[in-house]
C-alpha cells in the first residue's frame, strides 16, 4: 500500500516537472542558437537565484504575491470556474492599496499597512463580484467577462494615473503619489525579504487546510469533477460559485496590495510586470496542478526565473528575455497536458497506432 502511494507521488512529481524540463531542453536549443552554452546559462540562472543568500531572499520576496495569485486561480479552476479576473483584481488591489497608502496620514504603521491590505482585498472582491453574479444569476460565461474586464480596468486606472487627481506631478513618468513610508513593509534580514512573504505563507498554510480538509474544499472538488453529483448531494451550486469567485478575488487583491507595499510603493502603468501577477499565477496553478504544495514550489521556481534573469543578462550574452521564452514554452507543454487530460489525446494516439486498449495499463480494479 505504502509502495503504491510512493509510486503515485513519484508519478505526480514527474508529471509536474516534465513540462519544465522539456521547456529547459527546448530553451537550451534557443541558447545554443544565440551561441552560448545552455548549461552555463542555466547554471547562472539557478545558482544566482537560489544558491546565494541575497538571490534566494529576492526569489522568496517575489514568490509571495505569486503564491497568492496561484492560489486564487487554483481555487476557481478546481471548481471548473475559469476566473481570469485574477490579473485585474491584483492590479486593482495594488492600486487601491497605494491610494490608501499615500492619502491616509496620522495612523501607526501596522494599522496603516493593515488598512491598505484590507482595501486591496475589498477592491479585489468587489471587482470579481461583477463576473461572479453575472455567472451565478444570468449564466454569463465567466471566462469572457473576466478576460475583457481586465482590459477595461487597465484603461480606467490609466485615466486616474495619467490625468486624474492621483497623478504625482513631481514624478518623471506616469505614476501616482508614493505610498507613505510608514505604510511600506520593512525589509528584513538585510535583504529584499519583507513580512509580506510570511503573510503569504500563513495564507498558504490556511488554504492548504481549506483544500485538503474543509467542507468548502470538499465541495470545490466535487463541483469541479462532477457538477451533477454536487447538485444531487444538495450543494447550492449558485451560492458556491459566488463564494469561490469572491475568495479568488480576495486572494488576488491581497497579492496586488502586498506587492505594492513590499516592492512597488507607487502605481505605475507597468505595475503588474510582464506577463503580470495574475497571468503568472495562472501558469503557476497549472504547472502545480492546482495542488497547494505544487503551487508553492512552482511559485518559487517562477520567482527564481525572474530573479535569475537579471544575472543572466549580467554574466552571459543571453538576453534576459530568455526567461519569457522559457515561460512561453512551459505554457505550451502545460496546455498540452491539460488538453490531454480533457480530451485523452495520448490515449487516442495510442489507440490509433496499433496498441489495442487491452495493452494499455488496466485500471486497478478491486474485487
Amino acid at each position: 500500500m505504502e509502495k503504491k502511494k510512493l509510486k503515485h507521488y513519484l508519478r505526480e512529481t514527474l508529471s509536474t516537472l516534465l513540462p519544465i524540463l522539456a521547456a529547459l531542453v527546448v530553451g537550451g536549443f534557443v541558447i545554443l542558437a544565440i551561441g552560448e552554452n545552455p548549461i552555463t546559462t542555466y547554471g547562472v540562472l539557478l545558482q544566482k537565484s537560489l544558491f546565494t543568500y541575497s538571490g534566494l531572499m529576492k526569489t522568496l520576496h517575489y514568490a509571495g504575491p505569486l503564491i497568492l495569485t496561484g492560489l486564487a486561480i487554483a481555487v476557481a479552476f478546481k471548481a471548473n470556474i475559469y476566473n481570469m479576473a485574477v490579473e485585474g483584481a491584483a492590479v486593482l488591489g495594488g492600486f487601491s492599496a497605494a491610494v490608501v497608502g499615500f492619502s491616509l496620514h496620522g495612523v501607526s504603521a501596522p494599522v496603516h499597512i493593515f488598512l491598505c491590505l484590507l482595501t486591496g482585498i475589498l477592491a479585489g472582491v468587489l471587482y470579481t463580484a461583477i463576473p461572479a453574479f453575472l455567472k451565478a444569476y444570468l449564466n454569463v460565461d465567466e471566462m469572457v467577462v473576466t478576460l475583457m474586464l481586465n482590459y477595461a480596468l487597465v484603461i480606467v486606472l490609466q485615466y486616474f494615473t495619467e490625468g486624474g487627481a492621483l497623478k504625482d506631478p513631481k514624478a518623471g513618468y506616469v505614476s501616482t503619489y508614493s505610498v507613505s513610508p510608514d505604510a511600506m513593509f520593512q525589509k528584513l534580514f538585510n535583504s529584499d525579504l519583507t513580512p509580506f512573504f510570511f503573510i503569504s505563507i500563513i495564507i498558504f498554510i490556511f488554504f492548504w487546510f481549506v483544500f485538503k480538509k474543509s467542507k468548502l474544499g470538499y465541495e470545490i472538488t466535487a463541483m469541479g469533477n462532477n457538477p451533477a453529483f454536487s447538485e444531487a448531494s444538495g450543494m447550492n451550486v449558485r451560492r458556491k460559485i459566488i463564494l469561490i469567485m469572491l475568495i479568488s478575488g480576495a486572494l488576488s487583491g491581497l497579492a496586488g496590495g502586498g506587492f505594492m507595499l513590499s516592492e512597488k510603493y507607487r502605481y505605475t502603468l507597468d505595475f503588474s510586470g510582464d506577463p503580470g501577477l495574475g497571468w503568472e499565477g495562472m501558469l503557476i496553478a497549472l504547472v502545480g496542478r492546482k495542488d497547494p504544495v505544487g503551487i508553492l514550489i512552482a511559485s518559487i521556481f517562477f520567482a527564481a526565473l525572474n530573479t535569475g534573469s537579471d544575472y543572466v543578462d549580467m554574466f552571459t550574452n543571453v538576453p534576459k528575455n530568455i526567461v519569457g521564452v522559457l515561460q512561453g514554452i512551459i505554457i505550451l507543454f502545460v496546455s498540452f497536458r491539460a488538453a490531454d487530460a480533457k480530451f485523452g489525446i495520448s490515449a487516442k494516439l495510442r489507440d490509433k497506432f496499433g496498441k489495442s486498449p487491452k495493452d494499455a495499463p488496466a485500471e486497478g480494479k478491486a474485487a
Partner: protein
Amino acid sequence: MNVIETIGLTKEYPNCVANDHISIQVPQSEITAIVGENGAGKTTLMNMFYGMERPTSGVLKIEGREVRFNSPLDAIDCGLGMVHQHFKLVPSLTVFENIMLGTETRKAVKIGKRQVPTPFIDKKQEKEKIAELIRQYNLSLSPDDIVGSISIGAKQQVEILKMLYRNVNILIFDEPTAVLTPQEIEPFLQNLKNMKQQGKTIILITHKLQEVMEVSDQVIVIKRGKIIGSMPTAETSPAQLADMMVGRKVLLRVDKKYEDLSQKPVAYEVKNLSVTESSGKVLLDDVSFQIREGEVLGIAGVEGNGQSELVNVLTGMMRCTGGSVSLYDRDLTNYWPRELRKAGVAMIPEDRYIQGLCREMKVSENLIAGYHGNPEFCSHGFLRGKAVRENLRQQVEKYDIRIGGESSYVSELSGGNAQKIIIAREFSSDPKLLIASQPTRGVDVGSIEFIHKKILELSGQNKAVLIVSSELSEVMSLSDRILVMFKGKIIGEVPGKNADSGEIGLLMAGIAAAG
C-alpha cells in the same frame, strides 16, 4: 436482397463489450426496427454503420461489398445517411440553405460551349431542387422558411431532406420520435412509409414498441450488446418485445413477505404530478400514488416513458409544473435535494456515476456526500477527518464494500461496490422514505441479492420505499404493488404478489388491461 449485412461485428471498450458478435441482415426497401434499452448497444452499432466508431472485429457489408468506414463521409458516399436525435442545423438559415450547406450549386456562365462555374450560389436552382424533393416525398415544408422558426417536426424533415438530397439509399434514424410531440409522430411515421415506397431502406432505432409495430417489417432486439431476437414484425407482439427487452429470467428470488398493509398510515403521497416543457411536450402526465409505511411500491415500464422524469422531480433535480408531493403531513413539492434529505428522504439516483458518486474522489468522501455538512462530519467548516474515516470503516464493514484501502478512489471500484457506497450512505441516514432508481443496474449478481435484501430490510422497519426499475423481475420480486408507466402516465396497477409478467408486459406496451 440484403443492403446491409454484418458478420460477427464486435466493439470492445476497455471496460466493456458494447457489441458482441452482432450478425444481422437488413433487406432492401424495408423498415428494420432495432429495439433495446438505453445502454443496450444500439447506438454503438449505428455509429459503426455510420463510420463514427470502428469495429474491434467483424465484417460490415453494404450491398454485398465489404466496407471499412473512417468517417461519416465514407458512409454517405456509400449511400448511408443518419438522422440524429439532436439536429445539426443552422437556425438562422433557410430550409434550402441548410440542406445545400456544403454542396452548394454554383451559378455557371456560358463561355462558348463550356459551362464555367462562378463563385456565386444559384439560389433559384437550389430552391427548385429542394421543392422537387419535398413534392416527391410528400413533406410539409417550404424551402424559404427560416429553420429557427419552424417546429421540431419540421426540423426533423429538414434533416431527412439533407440525407435524401445526398442520394442516400439507407436512412438510419436514432430515436426519431423522442423529440416529437404526439401530434407530430403520426405524420412522421407516414413519411417513413412514403420513403420506403420510394425504395429507401430504413433502420429505426427506438424503444417505443407501438411505432415498431406500426411501421416496421422486421424487428431486431438487442440486450447487453447481443442480439437476442430477430423476427418479422407480423410474427411478434408488443408484449413479447417488451418481455425480450427488459425481462430476464428471474435469477434469484428474495424472500419477500407480503403483509396486509391497508391499515398502515400513508407515508408518502404524490398527487396529480405533471411536467410540461416550455415547448408543450408533456413529460409527466397527472401521476398520482400513495405509499404506506412498510410498503414497497414498484414502478415498471419500458425506459423512456417518464420514469426518469418522475424520479428527477421527486429527488429535487427537476421542477414539476403541477401537482404536489408530501411526506406524512409535510409538503415536499419542488424541494431541493438538501431539504429533501433533511426531511428524511434517501435517494438512489438512476445513474450512479453522474448523480450518485464522484469517481475522482475517495470512497470515504463519497460516503458522506450530502451529509458532509452535518455536525458529525463537520465542525466550523472543517471536515472531521477522524469521523470520516471511522464512518468509512463502519460502512465498509456493514455493507460489505470491497475497497483496496482507506484512501481508495471510487474509480477503482466495480459497479456493484460503487452502488453499495450509495446504499450505505443513503440507508445510514435513517430515512423515512427511500426513492431508488435502477438500484441494481450493471451490478453483479451477488451485489444484486445484497442490495435487494437491504431494501426489504428497510421496508421491514416500517419505511416507505419507491422502486423505479426497468428490470421487470426486480420490480416484481420486491414490490407490494406495481404501477406501470407509459408515455408519462400511470397506465395500470398490478398487485406485487404473484404478479403476472404477461399482464405487466401488455401494460408496458401501452395496452391497458380490460377491466
